């Protein structure tokens, strides 16, 4: 083993010196900690990791890492991450999002990223609120949650991201809690290692607009049974659990859908031939 390989990477090797914009006590600090711990455990050097995001509180995370990062437009992080991973399959690609970015404006990309099953990891920090715009309901918000934009609540049934991921073809589905950073890091490590599209929903409380979520730390509990490889069974469990089961819930065995760039078989000039009369 060379000297370089022998150097063990530490979480701080994956953290930048940029100060987060998050509120004190935000769950996303712990998610950042989990990501850097996971990357250190994976041992891939930071220059071979790309962290891609959209817009929202959680999407500020790329600049807080020491990896290559992309803070793109609202809702499109999965598309951008897919293009990057297909063009550069040698990279580890983490796509980071929130419940508004990922499930509302980016909802269509979520479905198709699951279907496409490209080998990347999608981590959504779910706090059931738009925080950056100061407290509007998101697709995962409870129907009776009162806000200025929807007084008395939206009355709408919350979106069920884990079940939708299963129905759409995600190959790995897990739920984590930001307040358990070591466990979250372990889940992210497994998600990255699992072939194909891995989806991790991290319950990450918003202390500012959803102070009621402080009770989550008392509600979360380990999933009572082992993960299944049967998507129907996993979906039934998730549809009927209390929403606070933590752990890996589904490990699929679909081969990854990453389209491979072919080997260059011919010189570009060969393409001219089909046009000759």
């Amino acid at each position, binding site marked *: 083993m060379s000297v370089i390989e022998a150097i063990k990477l530490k979480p701080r090797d994956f953290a930048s010196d940029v100060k987060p914009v998050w509120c004190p006590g935000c769950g996303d600090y712990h998610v950042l900690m989990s990501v850097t711990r996971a990357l250190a455990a994976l041992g891939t050097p*930071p220059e*071979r990791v790309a962290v891609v995001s959209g817009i929202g509180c959680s999407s500020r995370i790329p600049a807080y890492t020491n990896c290559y990062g*992309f*803070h*793109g437009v609202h809702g499109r992080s999965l*598309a951008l*991450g897919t*293009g990057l991973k297909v063009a550069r399959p040698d990279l580890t690609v983490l796509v980071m999002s929130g419940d508004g970015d990922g499930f509302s404006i980016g909802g269509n990309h979520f479905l198709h990223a699951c279907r496409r099953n490209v080998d990347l990891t999608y981590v959504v920090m779910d706090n059931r609120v738009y925080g950056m715009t100061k407290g509007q309901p998101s697709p995962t918000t409870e129907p009776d949650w009162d806000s200025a934009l929807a007084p008395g609540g939206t009355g709408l049934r919350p979106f069920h991201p884990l079940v939708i991921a299963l129905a759409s073809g995600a190959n790995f589905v897990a739920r984590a809690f930001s307040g358990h950073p070591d466990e979250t890091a372990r889940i992210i490590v497994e998600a990255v290692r699992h072939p194909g599209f891995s989806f991790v929903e991290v319950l990450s409380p918003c202390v500012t607009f959803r102070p009621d979520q402080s009770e989550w730390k008392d509600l979360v509990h380990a999933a009572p049974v082992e993960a299944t490889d049967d998507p129907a069974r996993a979906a039934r469990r998730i549809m009927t659990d209390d929403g606070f089961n933590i752990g890996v819930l589904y490990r699929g065995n679909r081969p990854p859908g990453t389209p491979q760039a*072919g080997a260059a078989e011919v010189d570009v000039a060969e393409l001219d031939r089909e046009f000759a*009369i």
Partner: protein
Amino acid sequence: MTSTGARDSACVAIVGSGGAGALTAGSILLEAAGKAGWYGLMTRSVGPQIRGGEAAAFVRLSTHPVECIADRCDAVIAIDWRKADRFADEFALDSGSLLVGDPRGGDVPEALLRSGAATAEVPMKELAKGIEGGRPNMIALGVAAGLVGLSTELVMAVLEKRIGSKGAGAVAASRAAVEIGLDHAQRIGRPIALAAAEGAGHGRWQITGNEAAGLGAVRGGVRFAAAYPITPATELLEWLTPALAKVGGVLVQAEDELASVNMIIGSSFGGTPSLTATSGPGLALMIEALGLATASEIPIVVVDVMRAGPSTGIPTKSEQSDLNIAVHGCHGDAPHIVVAPLSVSDCVFTTQWAVHLAEAMQAPAIVLSDQFLGQTLAVIDPPAPVAFLAQRRVPDAAALAGYQRYKLAADGVSPMALPGMAAGQYTADGLTHNEKGTPSSRTSDHRDQLDKRRDKLTGFAYGDHWAQIEGDGDLVLLTWGSLTGAAREAAQRLSEAGVATRLVAPRLIAPLQVDRLQEAIAGRRVLVIEQNHSGQLYRYLRSMCDLPGEVRTLYRPGPQPIRPGEICAAAQAWRSQ
């Protein structure tokens, strides 16, 4: 013009209802004429049906390269006349034209007869029935070949290539049908006196603008494409799928245009020159991400094959009405590159150049093609290979020490680290950022980075490719894109009629080369010619520079293309006042 004396150009239309094979017959006619040494092009016009609608193939043949449709049709050959009146405007018939129809295929539409065109009958269905496996469209092909003076052997050389795999019987049936058609053309006794082709067609190409743009992209180094289907751009993407696979690239079908443009931003961030193609509605969806590519300085190429708009508009018809959105669509101050190919052949050059420009300046480039360029099949001289390649500036070891992705530079272009480069890590960001890439709302950072993005585009050495300029006459025909061919033909006719002209067709729409444009038109009268409802180019030019002297406009929307005769008429009318 009548059919006396050999002419250097002729146009034949073949029309038929669903499944009649008019387009197939037209493309075989074009290729056979190409083999004989004529240049030419085929445009197609179809009804709104997905499959089985009426269709017309317009084949224009010429002794020299042609880049626009003719002012008139010499002959229309109808496999049947059902709904052929919908093409009445496009046929542009006159008393010198000939209408050949199958008496069993309905009456010749009144709208066509009003032109005074001569008529003739060939019972194509009946004749086809007499041949085992015979098809009426092959008889129509034979009639067309006979009218322009193509031999059976030339037509059969193309047919054998196309249907040889179907067996000797199919080839024999087609030969018999073509021969009968040729014989009937003789009997009609009104040949189209097309001047003999000069030189052989060997070595020439038959290509559409969509294929040409795809080829230019691959020649320029594009190795990743994302695709969402949209008329009339889809063929470009379909051509790229196998082409990219052959040269070590890849195409991904996206779920929508929002995804396709963001996918290519991701792949280009990874270091792979990347492209997508769309039409107006798709470009509208991509606009936000074009701003992201501008702000984060990621090179991408978006080909917009324009169609009549707004909204769904007329998806199968050409218009030059996306200039405004292409140049001005982005929110904020978002300088980017807009180029427009000037012919089917030029789609190769201009798309390749766009890849080069985007990569060299780390900025998005929009290529404004249109339905006419994209879907016209043309016989052309092979486009010469050019040296423009994707060459992205990446940091060396010195630049990686204390690396700053958006470092201010004299030419505005800062080295771009690619994932995998140690010490090059940065976060690309649509947020205003400082030189390092860290989000910042400081006044100086915002201004400096806006300046940087502007200066790298305005200071670039575009060379003489910014425009095509021909002639030195007093009257400037100033046009762009697919109308360049029609304007060139008009310029020639005007010169022959004693009106000295100069053709000025900017290939680089943005950043507009104001000084060079003013120099090109100084001291001359200017007629600005474009195909849209509001004079988008004219207004853009007015907003950017002082157009000296007398300036007039010729603009109108699609779907009928502006033909050379219309341009000549506008120029002559101005002259006679």
